[in-house]
């Protein structure tokens, strides 16, 4: 799979199929990017489970933080990786063990070896993208901020 470009249909299908997302590297600090993404995705109806060994046992936006993916006591649809690219491989191993269906690496995070491993295990992979940005772009909200969404349509926008 080409990880330089993703079709809108590919991203839309992923964002519409997942319900529970484990966010590895979620921060309890309100002005960190992960907190922005978690809060936004919660507002769109996703269940976000934060994973961060430094904040294990604390709560972020009402959700208990786990030290690692293996500790999360319920099924996970997608793992969102908010860590350095080099840290992605062991997280992907855990995602495969947890039977997650999708591995999503944040803007600036790309690890082709980890991606290949996930894909070999039947998971879908997105790298170097932000689910908040992609969700809002595909649903017209990003255009409210003056951003070029690349979407041309004579159909009423779905909110």
């Amino acid at each position, binding site marked *: 799979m080409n990880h330089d470009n993703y*079709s*809108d*249909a590919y991203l839309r299908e992923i964002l519409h199929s997942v319900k529970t997302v484990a966010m590895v590297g979620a921060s309890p600090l*309100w*002005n960190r*990017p992960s*907190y*922005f993404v978690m*809060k*936004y995705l919660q*507002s769109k109806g996703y269940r976000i489970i934060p994973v961060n060994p430094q904040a294990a046992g604390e709560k972020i936006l009402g959700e208990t933080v786990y030290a690692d993916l293996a500790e999360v006591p319920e099924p996970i649809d997608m793992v969102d990786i908010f860590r350095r690219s080099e840290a992605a491989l062991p997280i992907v191993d855990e995602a495969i063990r947890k039977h997650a269906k999708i591995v999503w690496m944040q*803007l*600036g995070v790309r690890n082709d070896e980890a991606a290949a491993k996930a894909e070999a295990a039947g998971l879908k992979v997105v790298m170097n993208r*932000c689910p908040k*940005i992609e969700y*809002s772009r595909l649903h*017209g*909200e*990003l*255009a*409210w*901020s*003056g*951003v*070029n*969404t*690349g*979407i*041309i*349509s*004579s*159909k*009423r*926008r*779905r*909110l």
Partner: protein
Amino acid sequence: MPETRKPGFDTLAVHAGASPDPATGARSTPIYQTTAYVFDDVDHAASLFNLQSYGYIYSRIGNPTVSVLEERMASLEGGRGAIAVATGHAAQMLAFFAFMEPGDQFIASRKLYGGSITQFGRSFKKFGWDAIFVDPDEPENFRRALTPKCKAIFVESIANPGGVVTDIAAIAEIAHQAGLLFIVDNTLATPYLCRPFEWGADLIVHSTTKFLAGHGHAMGGVVIDSGKFDWAQNQKFKTLTEPEPAYHGLRFYENFGDLAFTVQGHAVGLRDLGASLAPLNAFLTITGIETLPLRMERHVRNALAAAQHLERHPAVAWVSYAGLESSPYRALAQKYMPKGAGSVFTFGLKGGYEAGVKLVESVELFSHLANIGDTRSLIIHPASTTHRQLTEEQQAAAGAGPEVVRLSIGIESIEDIIADLDRGLAASAR
């Protein structure tokens, strides 16, 4: 549209940013004539103020009609995002405000629109921003003028009023080697004729008052970000990379990535400079842009015919239009704007200052006024109007000496445009 097709420029000019209204299905873009927007609850309000969700708070910072124009312009220029503002001058102010601090410098072409030279050279000084002006015809001049305090280089793709075309790619390279931001004013070319991001520009500014709106009904400006500039490559752009105190230590570049400039331009630039675009003016500009490709085709065709006619006229000393064989800028024009060199150009009268005054006062189809890029043909004598605040030396450097007349050729019948020029030139030679 199916994703396998990349929409053409003319399709984007009509559709980009303007899907039917989600609430009503209105096909034309509604004019959201409102100052403020209700919050669902306190938490929703907090999310908006913290920039954690997308939405409207107050029309000084964002408005749905204005957003359509922003996306339309970002799309036409091939950029990531845009900030629409009240005027072209406000666009320049907002672009520099994003990263300049007292004591900082930037290098600008000295062949800019006279109003920009005044804004940069005088009013910017009050903020402690220092503009260094150089002759853009020799790109190395920009390199020679570099100082440790320089943060950006600013040029116009086609200079107003001189018919001068800038070597965008060469200057972009000099800017990027020095870690500077490269800003191009693309007002006179419009993205239909020239696409500066494809030649290395990082930001593009426009006065939308001109060809983009086209009708002369509405003022407006826009700053477009390519989304490709690395704000963290050096220590020059701390307002984007370091914690922003007014947003509790948020770092725009870290949080918003390639959207950082667009988000900061609204959240800080529009918030504090207050140069918001009126929704009605955004609507009028959007409507104008729909026909931009059709109008520009006619503008450049008429301009070339008028310039060729003037070049043969006995009362005319010279014509400076980059579309002419005789122009020293012809090669640059063919490289950067192969569809035409715009429709604003200057020519010199053998009769000097007096002949210039007589000409502008005796034409009947051309309107004597201080604007360009209208559907109507426009004429002005810069030395007695737009450039009169400059010294004679600055006037000459800007291509606006005493004998110079500037034309903005409209989309009327070319026979009528030429007949009116002939009548005016005959009167000016008397």
